């Protein structure tokens, strides 16, 4: 299985879906350019554990890259929004606009050995875990160049260290505990982060996963992305206890300002250290907010006010927040940020064109990958007896 994973990685890389990981990791020489920034004192709230340090130390390049990643992610989701409205994207499409700090802040605290799994709002994580923008957009368009060959769509995208992209609310949480189980079984010094929303947090299997993770001290971190609404149901209408970071009972937890990418980074670095050192699982609650509806078919205004959305955009935006930080600390100039913004637009526009240029998958792909190549069933039936495929 390890070797087949390598093959799978090589295969994926060969299809040029994956940006080389080195691009996103900073060289050790950059340590000299490390800067120190102080987090707001209300960045964390704790449950049976100490708070992470409020002093964030990161190389300048990394801070700039965080900004860049968030800007690219937002551009990518804006492009998805446009493509959906142009009826080029089918079915469900869940955007992460407003929630960028979670995926970006997590990535800077993790390595490729660490794994992430989430539900259907997965475009941002796929990008941060190495999926190219073109491969993500092409997947949304159902094209051959899509990261899953056009077979998964918006909700099903995977990279060698990202287990999707899962469509059944809550089911990804025990799956993630299983990935952590494998890490422990194989003596890997790495952790798995399982993300779920405030809506999914009430699923029974989430608690089943908590229980086993604690029982067996798995290197599992459970991350509740609390964006305040499970579809249109406000957290306090779905959850008897909305302190999601306390809901692990016997598992310590941390509430994090999920709109501050630096606080996310700090909390995730802390969580990784916690669980890899053998202390067992940890819960993180990322307080965040989605600007758009639950999915493209939801205007997102029947269960919350426009004022609320506007307020979050004006006062809590993760990109604006980091921008101010970077400018105040003289890490970058306004012009440099503008250049990043412009480059992001160009990059995403180019990816949109590449994705659109990709043909639809070959019809022959209809029959592949139901079973692993070489171990298929003898034949698969189509819609009528004379429509079939023999392997």
């Amino acid at each position, binding site marked *: 299985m390890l070797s087949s994973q390598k093959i799978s990685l090589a295969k994926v890389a060969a299809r040029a879906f994956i940006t080389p990981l080195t691009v996103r990791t900073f060289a050790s020489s950059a340590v000299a350019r490390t800067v120190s920034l102080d987090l707001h004192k209300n960045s964390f709230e704790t449950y049976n554990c100490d708070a992470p340090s409020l002093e964030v130390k990161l190389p300048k390049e990394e801070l700039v890259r965080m900004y860049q990643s968030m800007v690219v992610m937002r551009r990518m989701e804006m492009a998805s929004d446009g493509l959906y409205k142009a009826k080029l994207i089918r079915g469900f499409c869940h955007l992460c606009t407003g929630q960028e700090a979670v995926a970006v802040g997590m990535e800077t605290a993790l390595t490729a050995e660490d794994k992430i799994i989430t539900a259907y709002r997965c475009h941002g994580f796929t990008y941060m875990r190495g999926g190219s923008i073109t491969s993500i957009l092409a997947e949304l368009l159902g094209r051959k160049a899509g*990261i899953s*060959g056009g077979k998964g769509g918006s909700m099903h995208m995977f990279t060698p260290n990202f287990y999707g992209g899962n469509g059944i609310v809550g*089911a990804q949480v025990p*799956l993630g505990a*299983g*990935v952590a189980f494998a890490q422990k079984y194989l003596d890997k010094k790495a952790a798995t982060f399982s993300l779920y929303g405030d809506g999914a947090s009430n699923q029974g299997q989430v608690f089943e*996963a908590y229980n086993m993770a604690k029982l067996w001290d798995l290197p599992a971190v459970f991350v509740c992305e609390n964006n305040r609404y499970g579809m249109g149901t406000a957290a306090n209408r779905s959850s008897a206890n909305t302190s999601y970071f306390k809901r692990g009972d016997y598992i310590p937890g941390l509430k994090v300002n999920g709109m501050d990418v630096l606080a996310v980074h700090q909390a995730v670095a802390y969580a990784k250290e916690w669980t890899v050192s053998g202390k067992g699982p940890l819960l993180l609650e990322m307080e965040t907010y989605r600007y758009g509806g639950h999915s493209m078919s939801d205007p997102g205004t029947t269960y919350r006010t426009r004022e609320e959305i506007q307020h979050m955009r004006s006062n809590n935006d993760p990109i604006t927040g980091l921008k101010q930080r970077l400018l105040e600390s003289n890490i970058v100039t306004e012009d440099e940020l503008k250049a990043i913004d412009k480059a992001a637009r160009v990059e995403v526009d180019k990816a949109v064109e590449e994705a659109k240029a990709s043909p639809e998958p070959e019809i022959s792909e209809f029959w592949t990958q139901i079973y692993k190549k070489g171990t298929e069933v*003898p034949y698969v039936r189509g819609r009528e007896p004379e429509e079939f495929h023999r392997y």
Partner: protein
Amino acid sequence: MSSMLKKAAVVSIPTVRQALLRSNPLLANALLAKRAYNSKGGVEMTVRDALNSALEEEMTADEKVYLMGEEVGQYNGAYKVSKGLLDKFGPKRVIDTPITESGFCGLAVGSAFAGLKPVCEFMTWNFAMQAIDQIVNSAAKTHYMSGGNVDCPITFRGPNGAAAGVAAQHSQCFAAWYGSVPGLKVVSPWNSEDAKGLLKAAIRDPNPVVVLENELMYGVSFPMSEAALSKDFVIEIGKAKIEKEGTDVTIVAHSRSVGFALEAAYLLEKEGICKAEVINLRSIRPLDVDTIIKSVKKTNRLVTVEGGWPQYGVGSEICAQIMESEAFDHLDAPVVRVTGADVPTPYANNLEAYAFPDTEVIARVVKRTLHKQIGAK
């Protein structure tokens, strides 16, 4: 399921043979008389021990194979299938889980995504309904949805179908349920060779495989061939086995029903009524329809036998596939299904006996089929 019920099920194990004798003396006697239905060999082995040796051999061969489930470790398995494995392989590889099917099944699937080869035991398949989403949506579909980027080499196993005297919630066959799902392979062993060879094949298969065992067969002994005793013995998934050759009618069965079908065939032959061919499906998905077609072309008559409910069942699928094949033109009589009754399984002994196929019902249906002709009169 309550822990009390689970205990009750366990207590019944030593009495399986008696129960078999009571509920089906014909089959039990036939088996006790060691009639040569299967491969000849000097060694006898229970289905339970065959499964145990399959697990032991595959865990010895591959460090990534591990066993997880309720009571598989310290308790030695609710039905003792995993007896001794904890002692041999330790708690890292034989893992007792809490009673949370959805959670531990999902966890096992996740570990398969990440490179392990779990054997996920359900104390019975009835409880796997709590976890069916993880089996169908996570295990069966992820390889396809990911464009081949994620593999899921997992084995789900446990006793399936009716046990004795455990009523409706613990007496159900899931062959049709899992057999309908693309991405899964589903096997259903009958005897000890089937059990060992199919479980080993399932563990080695890089796809999710559902192994539907049968509690009432666990304690039954069968001869094992020399080949079947080898650690290299595997049975190819997707191939049916002709257990008895015949010329007048084909009886297709899986799991425990194979024994009844054989018994009926021998009975009818002894009475000089017909020579029936008996096919042991072994695999539910893929379904070896080619073997059935070939047999029907020879015998021109077909009866299917299963313990599951009639509607949308294994027999229904076989009927449909025969209709769509060239074998249809070779039928001299309509295909008939012998199935479990379309009723939730009752508890009382006499009512329960009415719920599932046995030798007498199969013999009756075969006789009736022999006199049927296609074409309205």
